[in-house]
């Protein structure tokens, strides 16, 4: 895990001082709300339907136990006893008082946390693979690259008033667990023929009202050019991205309008100029950062055997435990999707329990996933049963990872001021309809994602099944989409047809899953069957 040095500390401390002063000037009336808004947003502070919401950064989704406990403390002390983990691998607190925020930031800083650039038209908190450093299939740990980008993008003087928000994801395996190509910039760290590591750069992906899959812009950028190249990518966007229409201001629209080839040419020209400036950190700095992410001291000679005599435990292992690169270890995903719960929510007590488990069984490490779950990345297989029991005791052992009830849902109309419809009740009704775990397992991997409006924070375009809440003449209406994916088989979902009421959408999904069960070939997931047989059979069942 990255540890701050004096420089990191001094920058975060200066930021708190700055924000305290900005809050004071706002409260004393020296700034209009319009002027204050971008400043508070760059500190993750939103004004929502009922209160301020504070979004705390979890850089590339990695935390230690101490940091996790601090989130529990903030939930207890400044919120209503819970927090909401988001699709950006961050956490949001929904009931915050403006006057408390400087103090909250101070508390966060004691454990090397902050809310910097979790919102606003700037480069947002960098996201990554939640299995980084543990995954059996990675070429390297992507997090040193992500940390390098965190530092580069923090208070970047040129890129703080971009046309629109800017999201970067970094992964380092062919399996994409981070929806990499649905980011403004998606980076896959790869090895070239010479055995050298570098970034494969995709630019211009995104969800929102105009979803796009990022095209490949550069096949390989070595470390020595990495920052210069990204600086060039951003500068072209800052100069030419549209500012006349907020809905056309994301980089995906620029690239769509220019074409990927023209954009690439512009970036290359800019890169030639930028490369001369000496803004790329040296290898020694990369090595310094990478040393923080050295693998923990795994025990060797551990057995891979797991006692599966408890059937509930065995089911949980099959669903929520993934392969680890070290023999005798496994990656555990803790589901924050109990039937009837709010996807991504955790109580302060649950947060503390996960922190304790990480401390005792996972080398002090936790991860937040974009699917709104928590990962214990390094658990010895012989500890799995104890971890399972303790999770079960805390209501955290739902064995539903990647099943239909492992739903991504944005806060929707229950919290969000932009929403058209409620996401959470729909998620709850679907989870209840399919509550029987045997039935869920029978349906297999089925990624269901719900957004409460066209902004798509719930990633509905990337769901095998997606749901979009819209406003239809003053009533909430839900559109249904099939065939999206945020993984390495990335694709955008298609709308089935007319929308549904809240109960209607649950029925429609059930009918669609019946079509799948009747039509699937061996080994096919829902999305595979859909891709093979197309929309028609589903439409007939749903609307016929």
């Amino acid at each position, binding site marked *: 895990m990255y540890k701050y040095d004096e420089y990191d500390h001094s920058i975060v401390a*200066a930021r708190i001082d700055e924000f305290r002063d900005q809050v004071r000037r706002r409260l004393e009336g020296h700034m209009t709300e319009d*002027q204050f808004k971008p*400043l508070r947003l760059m500190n993750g502070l939103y004004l929502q339907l009922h209160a301020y919401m504070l979004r705390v950064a979890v850089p590339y989704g990695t935390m230690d136990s101490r940091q996790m406990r601090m989130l529990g403390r903030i939930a207890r002390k400044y919120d209503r006893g819970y927090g909401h983990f988001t699709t950006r691998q961050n956490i949001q607190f929904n009931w915050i008082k403006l006057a408390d925020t400087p103090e909250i930031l101070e508390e966060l800083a004691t454990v090397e946390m902050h809310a910097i650039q979790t919102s606003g*038209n700037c480069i947002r908190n960098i996201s990554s693979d939640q299995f980084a450093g543990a995954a059996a299939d990675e070429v390297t740990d992507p997090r040193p690259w992500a940390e390098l980008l965190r530092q580069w993008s923090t208070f*970047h003087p040129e*890129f703080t008033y971009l046309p629109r928000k800017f999201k970067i994801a970094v992964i380092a395996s062919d399996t994409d667990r981070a929806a990499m190509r649905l980011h403004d910039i998606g980076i896959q760290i790869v090895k070239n023929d010479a055995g050298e590591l570098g970034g494969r750069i995709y630019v211009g992906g995104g969800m929102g009202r105009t979803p796009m899959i990022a095209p490949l812009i550069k096949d390989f950028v070595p470390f020595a050019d990495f920052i210069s190249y990204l600086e060039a990518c951003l500068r072209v966007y800052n*100069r030419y991205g549209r*500012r006349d229409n907020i809905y056309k201001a994301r980089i995906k629209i620029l690239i769509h309008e220019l074409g990927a080839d023209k954009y690439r040419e512009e970036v290359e020209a800019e890169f030639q100029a930028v490369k001369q400036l000496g803004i790329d950190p040296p290898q020694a700095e990369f090595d310094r950062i990478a040393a923080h992410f050295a693998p923990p001291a795994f025990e060797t000679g551990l057995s891979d055997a797991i006692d599966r005599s408890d059937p509930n435990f065995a089911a949980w292992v099959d669903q929520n435990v993934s392969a680890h690169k070290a023999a005798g270890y496994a990656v555990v995903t803790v589901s924050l999707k109990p039937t009837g719960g709010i996807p991504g929510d955790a109580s302060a007590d649950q947060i503390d329990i996960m922190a304790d488990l990480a401390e005792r069984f996972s080398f002090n490490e936790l991860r937040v996933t974009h699917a709104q779950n928590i990962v214990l990345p390094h658990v010895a297989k012989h500890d799995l049963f104890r971890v399972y029991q303790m999770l079960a005791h805390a209501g955290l052992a739902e064995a539903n990872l990647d099943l239909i009830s492992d739903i991504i849902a944005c806060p929707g109309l229950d919290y969000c001021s932009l929403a058209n419809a409620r996401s959470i009740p729909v998620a709850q009704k679907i989870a209840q309809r399919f509550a029987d775990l045997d039935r869920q397992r029978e349906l297999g991997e089925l990624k269901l994602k719900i957004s409460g409006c066209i902004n798509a924070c719930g990633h509905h375009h990337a769901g095998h099944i997606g749901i979009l809440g819209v406003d239809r003449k003053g009533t909430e209406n839900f559109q249904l989409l099939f065939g999206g994916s945020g993984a390495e088989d990335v694709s955008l979902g298609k709308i089935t047809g007319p929308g549904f009421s809240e109960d209607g959408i649950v029925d429609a999904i059930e009918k669609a899953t019946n079509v799948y069960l009747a039509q699937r070939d061996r080994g096919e997931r829902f999305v595979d069957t859909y891709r093979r047989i197309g929309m028609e059979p589903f439409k007939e069942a749903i609307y016929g």
Partner: protein
Amino acid sequence: MVDAIRFRDDEAHDEPAVTLDSFLGQSNATAVRIEAGEDARVLLPHLDRLALVEVSFPKFRDGRGYSSGRILREAGYTGELRAQGDVLVDQIPLMRRCGFDSFAPEAPVDAAVLEASLARYSVHYQAAADSHIPVWKRRNG
């Protein structure tokens, strides 16, 4: 319009800044104003005769001028670089880092707040168009 806030020792330039079109059309102007959407790179062949470049910030949210400033400085421009328009006190430190050394905000700026803002960060992570040594260089000697 209030007086420009300057971070230069030389005398303020007294020739008014002309538009980019008229600058390119006349050979003797030494001060030019570029609008947010204009390409600062067209000035690069003329940098040695320029004493003042004024970059317009029509709305504080419009960040194109930050790139214009850096592009000019990166190309070696040493004359006065002025940010004019909807320039707010919290933005001036960022603009300083992008090479601006003179500011003509539409609304007055509180001098004490500005002084505190400029002094607040003693180090910066990334290299830009100012003389700050980036953190990665400090760390690695």
